[in-house]
């Protein structure tokens, strides 16, 4: 039976060899994936998509009260 270290090593080699011998299209799509994730998480999420309630209120109680105010309107 393989030791846990051996299993981890085999998993690492599996992925390492897979990426090393990747085809033309595989390399291209990985570049696209990385650029896409960079744009989405480090530009769009950080600068354009703050969580409205998290940014404007400090606790869930405040958030709940705000939405309650929104739902009940001027009544």
């Amino acid at each position, binding site marked *: 039976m393989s030791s846990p270290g051996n299993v981890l090593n085999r998993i690492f080699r*599996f*992925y390492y*060899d*897979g*990426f090393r011998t990747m*085809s033309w*299209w*595989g390399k*291209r*799509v*990985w570049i*696209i*994936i990385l650029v*896409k*994730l960079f*744009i*989405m998480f480090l530009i*769009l*999420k950080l600068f*354009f*998509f*703050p*969580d*409205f*309630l*998290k940014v404007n209120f400090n606790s*869930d109680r405040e*958030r*709940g*009260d705000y*939405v*309650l*105010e*929104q*739902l*009940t*309107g*001027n*009544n």
Partner: protein
Amino acid sequence: MIENFDLSLVDWSRAQFALTAMYHWLFVPLTLGLSFILAFMETIYVRTGDEKWKRITKFWMTLFGINFAIGVATGIILEFEFGTNWSNYSWFVGDIFGAPLAVEGIMAFFLESTFVAVMFFGWNKVSKKFHLASTWLVAIGANLSALWILVANAWMENPVGMVFNPDTARNEMNSFAEVVLNPVAVDKFLHTVTSGFVLASVFVVGISAWFLIRKREEELARKSILIAGIFGLVSSLAVALTGDTSARTLAQVQPVKFAAMEALYEGKTDAGLTVIGALADSGDRIGEKKVHDVKLKIEIPKLLSIMTTGKGSGYVPGLKDLVNGNPERGILSVSEMMERGTYARQVLTDYKMAKELGDKESMAELAAKFEDKDFIDNYFKYFGYSYFEHPWQVIPSVPVTFYAFRVMVGLGFFFILLFALALWFHKRKTLEKNQWFLWLALISIPLAYLASELGWIVTEMGRQPWIIQNLMPVHVAVSNISAGAVQTTFWLFAVLFTALLIAEISIMVRQIKTGPKH
């Protein structure tokens, strides 16, 4: 306050969500269907040991990989939008979305991410059977991921399995089973995944037809047409069947959408299903909404009644019944629903005031109402109607819903014919002789995407003005942010997704032209 919200903010937020959801959906259905086609092809390879099937599988796997990689994480943008643009909605849905989406995230990560790597890196490194199992698990995992998203979406159309907590202003799930087994969720899942199977089958048949037109890779093309033709034909029939069951559920939980799909204004017994028709302004109005006549109509007698009630003499309510009410048929008017919703909202307002005054006795008394079955079924159920000024505001765009539905269904039946012809010509070994059919198959690829997108247009445009059926209209759901900010991100997304689409198409076209490895 909600009354002061800028309408352009609502419109831009809707447009942005529609844009990102529709772009995201360009990638999803091919993944859902092609994963199963790969699994079938690889199963044949493992069972027969025929290396030709391995080559065929690897070719389609390449196209699957490109689509999967470009599309991955595009859905996360929708979650960004929930938090920024739709904060009232996100808060109001509470943990209803959290549970299914968490399950989806875990399953997607473990099933898809792990086994996708084995699919692509594992040839000649793991056993044939393990590789095959990985391919099947990717297919099952991808489709199960869709299940959880669709469960969340179905809850918005038929909110069940929850109780509203006035203290937190959130809905709390009290029955996971009810949420998952929501009839809308079951119908939606079956209809959506089978439509994905159809799209993928059209894709495979279309690309294979291109190879036959170019007189290249004829064996790969013929074998692929056989597999995709069978899978596509079975799936198309399943789409028609699940569409029928969806219609029955829809008529019960979203009768206004159903009537809009049929442009049915006057309720009737022995109602026929309009197959083809053109809408014309009748000059009549429901409030400020135009009433349309259906001209040039080809109708199947009684079919609409049968679809909705199970019998030809069944009564199908029209938009006028649903807006003005029809006591004989037990249909409440929207005015009545508005009154009931206003009462429910008043109870919530009273609760808020008691909370502000620290009046715990009143708070407890009012909070108990939100757990009382009579109050839930007769008042809170209509909570969202309190936000409308006029009954006619509950009517969606009839022309958009009517035409989108007809084109989608028409294309669905066209695909049944396409697959039947593909199998017929394959059996008779006359695929290459029928060049017209090969070209038809090729140009059907964009039509499959069109049908798939139209399905979502029917679903989402048809349920306007609701974001959560009967509980929350779209204009109440938006965050109090500037419309300019939403416009900016709308165009950013338009550029980003268009670039991704161009990347996908160009890499895919290059790989198709290159063909399978020898």
